[in-house]
């Protein structure tokens, strides 16, 4: 074959071939090489490798140093320079063409360098694809790392983990120096501490990722996952196999969703609903009791009036005592209504308290004297310091509290048994107590005494009459004075109801 025939053959190759003289001037270039460098074949001959018609760049995009030109590497080392990736920016455009270059020295007699042959392939498309894949991979990883859900991918062929996002990594037992690619799906149970909702630890073969990668099963279940900090979370675990084009399992993906908070909210909602239902039932019961309690004095009132009318019709005079009895019933109704209004205002936070400097001692004495007027049969004693006790309180409301406590003591203890009222001064607080010698109150009933509408207080009320609101009102009045109310009681011995007011702010 002649040289022309070889030339034609070389020009048909999809590989660039350039032959340089030892001074780097081009002796020969085929068509593919010229095209890649943006020139005609005839324009190539004679140019040096450092010709300004082209610019070489390295993979980072920086201009390639002259000594790193494939030809110059060979010149310097006198041996082949292989698989060098070089970007070529032709003079016209900014488009970069990427070439994978191999350069070989050709020696003549006496090992004298005769020529340098450079061949290269166009790898622009391949490199762009690689970059796109890299970008995509980066994008996916950062997206998955942002995710609250744990993601893991296992490889079917190696039986090892291929990928673990940040969240999944943090859920795993921290084994020092362990590389995820060393985690075998056959020992996955030692990486994630999972148990079923009954608390039984998951065996390795029961783990969804293992089932997906080994048996091609798609599954999801809820499990407990113990975190490295020993915290237990509820997880929704999903795993699915990924098939290759032949339909065989190539890998499997696992997604872990933390559902603890959802479960907690559901439980809380359920509890709140139950409380609301209980409150509604209690209020309905309370309304029943309130209606009953109002109906009783109204019945008496109605009976007394009807009876009086009948007596009048028969010519009898109305007895003065009947009028007193009528008035008592009206007062009873108005007391109930006032209690109901107080509770309604307390529930709305609208019960006004007007504190003013008050002598507690004389206030208590006033209560005691007023009480004696209505309960002559009771022995009522008061004990307190010799001097007055100044405090900044709402005298009307405190009078109401003391009267209420005295009323309770009278109502729930046998006629004739004594009641004692005491006023004590302590360094930080003032304490007022009302002690009776009645049957006492069982421990389990004490808590409910101070609560309105509660089952306990409503049941107590049903047995004892009244709305059972008095102590709740007292409690709230004392709390509005930044104090506290309490009860000490012993079955068979009696009860002491007391309240304490802070001395700070006392006049």
């Amino acid at each position, binding site marked *: 074959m002649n040289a022309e025939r070889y030339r034609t053959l070389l020009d048909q190759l999809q590989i660039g071939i350039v032959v340089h003289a030892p001074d780097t001037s081009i002796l020969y270039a085929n068509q593919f090489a010229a095209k890649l460098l943006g020139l005609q074949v005839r324009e190539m001959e004679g140019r040096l490798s450092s010709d300004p018609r082209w610019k070489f760049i390295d993979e980072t995009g920086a201009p390639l140093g002259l000594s790193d030109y494939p030809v110059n590497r060979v010149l310097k080392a006198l041996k082949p320079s292989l698989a060098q990736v070089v970007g070529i920016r032709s003079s016209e455009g900014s488009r970069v063409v990427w070439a994978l270059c191999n350069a070989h020295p050709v020696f003549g007699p006496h090992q004298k360098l005769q020529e340098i042959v450079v061949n290269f392939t166009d790898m622009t498309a391949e490199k762009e694809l690689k970059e796109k894949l890299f970008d995509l991979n980066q994008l996916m990883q950062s997206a998955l790392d942002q995710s609250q859900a744990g993601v893991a991918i296992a490889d079917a062929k190696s039986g090892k983990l291929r990928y673990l996002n940040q969240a999944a990594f943090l859920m795993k037992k921290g084994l020092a120096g362990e590389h995820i690619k060393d985690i075998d799906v056959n020992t996955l149970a030692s990486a994630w501490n999972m148990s079923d909702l009954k608390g039984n630890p998951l065996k390795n073969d029961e783990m969804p990722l293992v089932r997906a990668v080994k048996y091609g099963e798609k599954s999801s279940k809820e499990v407990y996952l113990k975190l490295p900090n020993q915290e237990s979370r509820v997880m929704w675990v999903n795993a699915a196999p990924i098939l290759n084009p032949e339909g065989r399992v190539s890998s499997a993906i696992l997604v872990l969703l933390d559902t603890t908070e959802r479960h907690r909210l559901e439980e809380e909602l359920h509890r709140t609903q139950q409380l609301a239902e209980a409150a509604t039932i209690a209020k309905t019961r309370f309304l*029943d009791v309130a*209606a*009953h309690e109002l*109906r*009783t004095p*109204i*019945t*008496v*009132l*109605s*009976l*007394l009036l*009807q*009876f009086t009318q*009948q*007596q009048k019709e*028969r010519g009898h005079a109305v007895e003065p005592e009947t009028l007193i*009895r009528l008035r*008592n*019933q009206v007062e009873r109704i108005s007391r109930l209504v006032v209690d109901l209004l107080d509770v309604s205002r307390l529930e709305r936070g609208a019960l006004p308290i007007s504190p003013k400097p008050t002598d507690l001692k004389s206030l208590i004495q006033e209560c005691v004297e007023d009480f004696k007027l209505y309960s002559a049969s009771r022995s009522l004693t008061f004990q307190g310091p010799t001097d007055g006790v100044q405090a900044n309180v709402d005298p009307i409301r405190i009078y109401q509290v003391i009267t209420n406590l005295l009323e309770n003591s009278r109502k729930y203890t046998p006629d004739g048994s004594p009641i004692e009222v005491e006023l004590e001064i302590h360094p930080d607080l003032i304490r007022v107590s009302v002690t009776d010698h009645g049957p006492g109150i069982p421990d389990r009933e004490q808590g409910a005494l101070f609560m309105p509408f509660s089952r306990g207080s409503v049941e107590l009320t*049903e*047995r*004892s*009459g009244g709305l059972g609101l008095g102590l709740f009102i007292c409690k709230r009045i004392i709390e509005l004075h930044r104090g506290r109310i309490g009860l000490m009681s012993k079955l068979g011995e009696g009860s002491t109801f007391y309240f304490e007011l802070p001395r700070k702010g006392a006049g």
Partner: protein
Amino acid sequence: MEATKKTILIVDDEREILLTLREFLEMEGYRVLIAENGFDALKILNQGEIPNLILLDMKMPIMNGWAFALEFLNRHDHISPIVVITAAGDAEQRARDIGAIGWVEKPFDLNQLLKKIEMYSRKPPAPTLPISL
């Protein structure tokens, strides 16, 4: 004519109701016994009283209307008819629960109460003959 007077036992924890009803029924010619709870009512019955009618409140301390009715059935075989007087809305149901012959809802009209007492009270004589309900 003391011997032909009908005896009414009123059981209610509300003292004013007891007193007013007693006054009224006495004025109407009845003999009236009163008790403030089921326990006191049983005491009266245990003394051999056989009222022609029992007016029974349901909500009472110590022994309520239900407990009283049960004891009354066990010990006295419901020897006297019972009319329930209650402030609750479901008076009829309560009357049925304890096998009462009738009911009156509080507050009530005295003349209507009188009519019910006349209608339901066991006719004298034959105080030793228990009626079964």
